[in-house]
């Protein structure tokens, strides 16, 4: 997708805003346009990240490492807003593990602290350390990893031995390579990998700096390729766009399924509540960089801009058009308004977590066993997300989106798409 196309599309939808009854297809077209914009923004910022990583590897220093880390943080902003597309769209959901799989057993990739432990009951390769080991045995096969290639990371190491925690590619693998382990537990501080882990010659710390650099370079290249693929899926002829538009009722179900599943099972449950209950800083989403507060916040913002049908791009331009809110309001203005209010409340609560983190209480500190204030902040946002899920269910009922295919069992075959 080119930017020209996108701007043209945005302009069309702006002038074409209907004053009469909304058509589901208009809402879905805008939904697809916003997806295209979010993935293209993710691609643009991933390319910027790749450029900073190349600059860092060409001339390793504290400054170039800081610039690469900053580019990583920037790249998370549009990507996290795209997560609302995950659960409703099988094309996205089948793919997303390649870019955002989490949590990971980072010992697969590189050296780790002694407290990390070794192979676990669940994962024989939790401490494989491919950067230090050019050859190794994986499920009875001898692997030649002397050259760190995209295929090695994507096809061999990613989910090696069928274990999801073996994450070799994507944002979090890159995050680990830029920051290293956060060994501060629930105390202040993020990962503190020295830039000299990438130094050439005698200055190299922790060994294998050349292989580490190869890994980082390859992972950045793969991220750009993957986001290019997903951007293509949402162009005029893209498969993901076609899937959304194929059946208007099903398409609207996909929108609401994505919003509800991200709100409830994923963000409120897996990513937020569980960390509090386990008091475990390894349960935070961006655990190496301590960027978790922003990741959660932009997940929430993504839900909001899909509902309201208006997304502000990284360059400040706006993609907007017929909204789901207006579609629901046509049938039941009360439910439509309540859902708007609920989403605004969850975004405000997620923003309060950002404020607290920026004022010194990092997300992992909020997870400490005796930090009642941090726990209250996180659980406040969890509660707001649960409340908005109920309103999403009411919107589904109001729109009378009955099961599209009762013959199959969507709740089992595709547990993330219960309404399809």
């Amino acid at each position: 997708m080119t930017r020209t196309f996108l701007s043209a599309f945005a302009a069309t939808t702006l002038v074409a805003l209907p004053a009469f009854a909304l058509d589901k297809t208009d809402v879905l077209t805008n939904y697809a346009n916003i997806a295209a914009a979010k993935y293209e923004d993710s691609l643009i910022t991933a390319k910027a990240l790749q450029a900073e990583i190349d600059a860092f590897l060409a001339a390793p220093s504290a400054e170039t490492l800081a610039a690469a880390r900053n580019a990583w943080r920037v790249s998370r902003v549009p990507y996290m807003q795209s997560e609302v597309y995950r659960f409703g769209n099988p094309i996205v959901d089948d793919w997303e593990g390649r870019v955002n799989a989490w949590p990971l057993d980072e010992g697969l990739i590189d050296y780790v602290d002694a407290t990390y432990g070794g192979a676990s009951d669940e994962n024989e390769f939790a401490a494989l350390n491919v950067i230090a080991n050019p050859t190794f045995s994986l499920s009875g096969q001898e692997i030649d990893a002397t050259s760190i290639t995209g295929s090695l990371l994507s096809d061999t190491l990613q989910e090696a031995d069928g274990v999801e925690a073996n994450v070799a590619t994507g944002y979090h693998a890159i995050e680990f390579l830029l920051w290293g382990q956060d060994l501060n537990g629930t105390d202040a501080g993020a990962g503190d990998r020295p830039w000299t882990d990438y130094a050439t010659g005698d200055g190299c710390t922790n060994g294998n700096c050349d292989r580490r650099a190869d890994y980082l370079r390859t992972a950045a290249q793969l991220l750009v390729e993957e986001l290019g693929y997903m951007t293509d899926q949402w162009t005029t002829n893209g498969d993901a766009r076609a899937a959304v538009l194929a059946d208007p009722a099903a398409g609207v179900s996909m929108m609401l399924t994505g919003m509800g599943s991200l709100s409830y099972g994923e963000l409120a449950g897996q990513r937020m509540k569980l960390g509090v209950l386990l008091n475990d800083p390894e349960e935070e989403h961006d655990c190496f960089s301590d960027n978790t507060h922003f990741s959660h916040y932009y997940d929430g913002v993504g839900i909001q801009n899909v509902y309201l049908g208006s997304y502000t791009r990284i360059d400040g331009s706006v993609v907007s058009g017929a909204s789901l809110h207006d579609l629901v309001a046509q049938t039941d203005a009360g439910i439509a308004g309540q859902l708007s209010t609920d989403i605004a409340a969850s975004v405000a609560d997620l923003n309060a977590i950002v404020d607290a983190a920026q004022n010194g209480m990092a997300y992992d500190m909020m997870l400490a066993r005796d930090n009642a204030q941090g726990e209250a902040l996180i659980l406040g946002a969890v509660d707001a997300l649960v409340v908005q899920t109920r309103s999403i269910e009411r919107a589904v009922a109001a729109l009378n989106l009955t099961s599209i295919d009762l013959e199959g069992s969507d709740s089992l075959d595709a547990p993330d798409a219960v309404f399809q």
Partner: protein
Amino acid sequence: MKYIMSCIAALTASTASADVARAVDDYILPGYATFAQTATTLSEGATSDCTIAAMRPAWHDAFDAWINISHLHFGPIEQDGRAVIIAFWPDGRSAGVRTLARLVATQDDVISTPEGTAQLSAAARGFYALEYLLFDPQFDDTGAYGCALRRALAADLANIATQVTDAWQTGYGATLRNAGAPDNQIYLTEREGVQALFTSLLAGLEFDIDNRLGRPLDTFERPRPTRAENWRSERSQHNILISLQGLKSLKDTLSDAQTPVTDAAFARAFAKLEQLDDPAFANVADPQGRFKVEVLQQTLRDIAVAAEVELSDLLGVQAGFNAADGD
């Protein structure tokens, strides 16, 4: 089939065949009462005799009572993370055993008060933490501290079970029973009450299929018997039976509707369970044993498909979001 179901739906009033009040009175409330009672028995028994041998039978009884109602993921059980604390599984990062081992190694006296125990990681509380303490040899000889830890976790569990049960008996049961009443803030329509129960039915089946059976089965090339739930206490197969019995009670109390396909699928699953003798699902490691567990898994899928088809139109609802909707 789809066409026929639509016609039936058109002919019947949307929630005419649902009976939320009966599900509350005949299934949910008695189920929670048994859970609170057996958890209290476990805790009181531990107070008088904290040996592993003495605690095991009471732990089994309380676990049975829990599994019977464990698929009800709404209401008081969702407050303060109670469901996660009672039953933290699967534990893909071994957080439970790591925390328990650290407590024992450091003789951490945080467990000397109920408030202290309540601050522990959820992974180190509840049924699965107790299973490690009662069935994993590494915790056999933990002396006085092990005894105190077992007592503390049993008391913590009994406390939560009692709180949840009280909440159902003194308020939440009425809230659900009166779904759609003018002053009901939680269930705005009767249909929302039906939906909560229908979602629980499907989510419970999904959990059995994907986790209780799916985790040990994994792939043909790489079965994983030690990922079976409760393989240490050899309850893996038994849990499926108790779970299905609970789900069947939920379905039967919720609806009088004729659901012949669902009922037949349940009957097939119970028959398969009777024939199967693989208490810890250890046999998934060989092809023949694996096949039997796969067949069982398929019968559960049949129940789920049938229940969705037969019940969703009859009850006038579809499943809502459930906690397993993430990844």
